């Protein structure tokens, strides 16, 4: 495994660019909302998911990718066979 500082410096510009894309997208949504185009209920839900995702990025730990994946996933219910009568 490479040293953490090396990974960070090698990835810095790429991550910076991705964060700017996220920021610009959120700005675009905000501008459109300010112009009177409110989010639909489904879009509000998606926006809330993105806010939760951004908070996960600020947490500590080496499992952020897995946590984001689960955030964006439908829940598993162990009784699915009974529900489907299968």
């Amino acid at each position, binding site marked *: 495994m490479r040293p953490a500082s090396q990974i960070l410096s090698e990835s810095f510009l790429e991550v910076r660019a991705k964060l700017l894309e996220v920021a610009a997208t959120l700005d675009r949504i905000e501008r459109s909302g300010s112009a009177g185009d409110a989010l639909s209920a489904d879009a509000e839900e998606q926006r809330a998911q993105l806010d939760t995702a951004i908070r996960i990025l600020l947490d500590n730990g080496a499992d952020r990718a897995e946590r984001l*994946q689960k955030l964006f996933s439908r829940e598993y219910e162990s009784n699915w066979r009974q529900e489907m009568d299968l």
Partner: protein
Amino acid sequence: MDYIDPHIHMVSRTTDDYATLARMGCVAMSEPAFWAGFDRRSVDGFRDYFHQLTEIEPNRAAQYGIQHFTWLCINAKEAENVSLSREVIAMIPEFLDCPNVLGIGEIGLNKNTRNEATVFLEHLELAIKHDQQILIHTPHLADKYQGTRMILDMLCDDSRIDPSRVLVDHVEEHTVAEVLDRGFWAGMTLYPVTKCTPDRAADMIEKFGGERLLANSAGDWGPSKPTAVPDLIFEMRRRGNDESLTRKVVYDNPIAFFSQSKNFSFKERDVK
């Protein structure tokens, strides 16, 4: 580095792609049966497709020194038509003795519906009856976690299924551990947007090691990159990982997994 792409849909690719793959080190590939982008309307449509997979594609690949293997099924996207699915499942044995057929696949779930689960279970019966290996498709995006767990439930509930003869494809960060923990092989699909990037695949290799882990491009008719496996090789090398670890994932593991099929007659390139 020689490599094997264990999941790629070459019927959707041009001959130029075969030439490029050969130049990038691809020496063999396996092509699971897939959705055509539209629902086929009859069992004869599938018969023609299976003819293409077992006769035409091996010849196209051979022109570029690539050995071509395949898997047969009706895809989960078409499983809502249960009666057609049953006709196709009944017809598949006509092709199981073709020399490049490795097993049944890619079977699985798409939207995690009852009909999909029914057809999946009937494919499992077919594989068990004919002692075939199994290649699994797991759903996309929000459906992946739930669908992967459902698939693992069905596989693990059947004591006749040997996990070491099953490859569960399209794993990502939230599904890979459980697939490996339950004894299955796991395939990472390198897709531009909807699945896994070469960087994230390299992260998973570093985290889990190379045991029972494979990488594929799943190149098809949609947004996909048939040369994605060399991208992963490059990323592993860029990070300074051992060549032996990379080689295990992109070459040794596919050979170890496929070798459990009686039809896997792979000839290694002479590198003397």
